[in-house]
């Protein structure tokens, strides 16, 4: 009930001093909006978002091998189709396993609706049929290619509605049409809702069976190791299964392939599989084990987000803190009265911070709306949305949906940002003001 009185007083003071409140709320809104955009980028990279709605259960399995004599050679690779079949087709803890050609072996393609028409550069993704079970794409029309298409290397593709609009100026009635990719005809079998290019594991303009790829490395692998190739394995764990269980199932294959590797070479090799949940992969957290080096890597990848968010909060907080100092001067007498009637300094500090939080939350709400407006209105501006994007070329446009934004996590992030900003802006002015002697406070002109 004490809290209710403070909130009531905060609202009354807002009405009393409209100019201060308006400026404070606007300042807070800009700060929160900026921080929220950074948080959104992180959120998009980490949370369960269309079509990567099972990120919390998705594991990416790659492999590294090193020359154990002084680590003169370090290699990262995927798997050949043969190895993929042997290792991943009978996993007990996997609900779905999908094979995708690693981005390292994939180049942009030219696309046009028919030869002679204007070509555009597009991003392909070469996958198996399970790809569309691992990621829950929304099919606007048609269906994904199937195992048979994959086996026969059928030239059939799934495209996004955005690409359909670009090529055919419509997104419906496209299934059955032909598209020229690098001057070869491909038949459209499905149209999916576009995925934001920020979701690098699932986004592409066009999805093709990996068997149509002309990437030699995909199939041949390295000369000395037959298991190596260009396929990445993505595993959707069954509910209740863990990464450790998956690693245990994969261990015999690691041992087997390591012995093959060592038998074909005069060097002694060591080899380990990178079995990484989505979040570890996102933060370039390479190691399987949590140790000092891997934690350092993770921190180095995480820190820029935190630093930029704090800067976005800190700089306006300095200004808001100045405003708060002035306001606390004008409230000195009130603080004196409260102290005269028995309020302790700590109680008053809590009160001021809580009252200010009410104001900050108004600003936070405005900032939240502002950032969502920014995201929906300014799709062409990639400055924030491709922040820290080392792996991907700049995109032409950014497709973001509001449902990415209005989630409990994002609300929580916004609230935490507000609380941090509030503390930074109010704590020092309030503390300074409350340190003044009661008589001095009471004699302050009101």
């Amino acid at each position, binding site marked *: *009930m*004490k809290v209710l*009185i403070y909130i*009531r*007083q905060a609202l*009354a*003071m807002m009405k*009393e001093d409209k100019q201060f409140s308006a400026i404070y709320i606007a300042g807070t809104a800009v700060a929160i909006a900026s921080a929220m955009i950074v948080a959104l980028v992180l959120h998009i990279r980490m949370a369960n978002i269309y079509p990567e709605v099972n990120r919390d259960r998705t594991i990416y399995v790659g492999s590294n091998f090193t020359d154990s004599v002084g680590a003169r050679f370090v290699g990262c690779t995927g798997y050949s189709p043969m190895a993929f079949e042997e290792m991943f087709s009978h996993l007990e803890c996997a609900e779905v396993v999908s094979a995708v050609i690693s981005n390292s072996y994939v180049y942009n393609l030219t696309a046009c609706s028919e030869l002679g028409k204007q070509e555009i550069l597009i991003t392909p993704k070469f996958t198996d049929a399970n790809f569309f079970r691992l990621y829950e794409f929304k099919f606007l029309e048609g269906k994904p290619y199937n195992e048979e298409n994959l086996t026969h290397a059928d030239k059939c593709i799934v495209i996004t509605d955005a690409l359909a609009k670009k090529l055919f100026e419509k997104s419906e009635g496209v299934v059955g049409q032909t598209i020229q990719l690098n001057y070869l005809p491909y038949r459209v079998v499905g149209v999916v809702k576009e995925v934001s290019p920020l979701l690098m594991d699932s986004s592409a303009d066009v999805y093709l069976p990996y068997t149509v790829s002309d990437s030699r490395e995909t199939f041949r692998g390295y000369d000395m190791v037959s298991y190596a190739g260009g396929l990445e394995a993505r595993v959707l764990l069954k509910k209740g299964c863990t990464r450790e269980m998956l690693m245990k199932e994969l261990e015999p294959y690691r041992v087997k392939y390591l012995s093959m590797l060592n038998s074909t070479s005069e060097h002694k090799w060591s080899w380990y599989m990178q079995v990484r949940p989505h979040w570890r992969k996102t933060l370039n957290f390479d190691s399987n084990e949590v140790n000092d080096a891997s934690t350092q890597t993770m921190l180095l990848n995480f820190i820029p987000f935190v630093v930029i968010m704090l800067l976005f909060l800190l700089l306006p907080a300095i200004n808001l803190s100045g405003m708060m100092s002035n306001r606390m001067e004008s409230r000195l*007498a*009130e603080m*004196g*009265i*409260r*102290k*005269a*009637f*028995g*309020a*302790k*300094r*700590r*109680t008053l500090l809590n009160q001021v911070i809580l009252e200010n939080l009410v104001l900050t939350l108004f600003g936070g709400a405005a900032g939240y709306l502002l950032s969502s407006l920014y995201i929906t209105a300014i799709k062409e501006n990639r400055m924030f949305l491709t922040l820290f994007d080392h792996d991907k070329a700049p995109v032409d446009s950014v497709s973001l949906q509001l449902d990415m934004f209005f989630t409990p996590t994002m609300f929580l992030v916004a609230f935490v940002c507000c609380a941090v900003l509030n503390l930074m802006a109010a704590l020092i002015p309030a503390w300074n003001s409350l340190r003044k*002697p*009661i*008589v001095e406070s*009471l004699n302050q002109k*009101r």
Partner: protein
Amino acid sequence: METIIKLTGINKVYRTEEIETQALENVNINVQKGEFLSVMGPSGCGKSTLLNIMGLLDEPTSGEIELCGTKIDKNLSDERLAEFRNRTLGFVFQSFHLISSLNVIDNVQLPLMYRGVGYSERIKRAKEVIERVGLSHRMKHTPVQLSGGQCQRVAIARAIIGNPEIILADEPTGNLDSKMGADILGLLKQLNEEDGRTIVMVTHNEQQALQTKRIIKFLDGRQIM
């Protein structure tokens, strides 16, 4: 008679880089329980400083304070002092010192809030004291919607809600016209006579002072009578 306020050898010196001002000089006062004492003197003679020191709002440069039998140690923490003020003292100020953003009932319940009394009990007691000062019809009004006399009544309600032994009133009628002033003084007298509360009132008004039980006078920081 029981001594409820005992000031012994109180000195208060205000120091700046250039000047030193002796606001109070060797003040010794005893106030008995149930007494209504007026403190008189010209502006700047140290009356308000004395009241602030009695009310633990200010520290003396030297000397001893004893309130309700408790010696006030100089090393007492802010928290303990706040607690002591809350339970023992009630203040009425010349300029009312109501919080403008709170309504009457919220202003009045303030001391109980800091004592940790529950909401319903606070409201019940606030309504009782507001009724006693004759402002039941103004409970939801804010100070700006009240006259000076009404504001001072609210301030008195706030001073007595915690049932303190001592009420310190610093020129409580100073900002009021004579009729309202008389009204407020009547209320203070009633609190003194009916409830037996000890009241120390600073005033310029000799006629009002004459209505209290005892008068002391100050000049240049010294008690002269």
